[in-house]
């Protein structure tokens, strides 16, 4: 039972780290503001999601798990709206071309 939990944790957190890695590579490699915004808003949100998923088996109970998920939801909502606002700014200042 413990082993199964740990496997989920290792897999989830590893996937999370991978997506953070990909997001950072994207931030460093992508050519302009808007494409970098893609890297940040998509990859990092997913990375956080996988980290949360990986940590779920390690939490004390259902409530703690739901709390983690609700934090992820907060971040998703904020990230989805804020990235639109940043994109709007970037397009208006003409750096997205």
């Amino acid at each position, binding site marked *: 039972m413990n082993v199964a939990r740990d496997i989920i944790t290792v897999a989830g957190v590893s996937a999370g780290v991978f997506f*953070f890695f990909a997001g950072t590579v994207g931030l*460093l490699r992508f050519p302009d503001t808007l494409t970098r915004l893609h890297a940040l808003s998509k990859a990092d949100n997913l990375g956080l999601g996988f980290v949360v998923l990986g940590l779920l088996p390690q939490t004390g109970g259902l409530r703690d798990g739901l709390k983690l998920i609700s934090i992820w939801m907060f971040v998703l909502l904020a990230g989805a709206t804020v990235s639109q606002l940043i994109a709007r700014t970037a397009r208006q200042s003409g750096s997205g071309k």
Partner: protein
Amino acid sequence: MTEFLTAAVGLILAMLGLGLVSILRGPTDADRMMAAQLIGTAGIAVLLLLGTVTGVPAAVDVALILALLATFASIAFVKKGLSRLETDGADPGEDR
């Protein structure tokens, strides 16, 4: 398990640092506006892992506050960035 999670924390932290380098370097303000968002995701991931590693359950509450306040900071970035665009003469769009 602890070693693995600590290593993961270290890696995400390194990614966070590199990402911040890339973002803060610019060139435009819109790039820098992403800083709070980056911390809102990567920083929270670090915090949640850290809470599990060190056995501090209240770290989740810190993550909650970090999520809300990072959002607030992001909005402030956008608003202030736009207010400057307005003085530059560009059309400020919806958020004046």
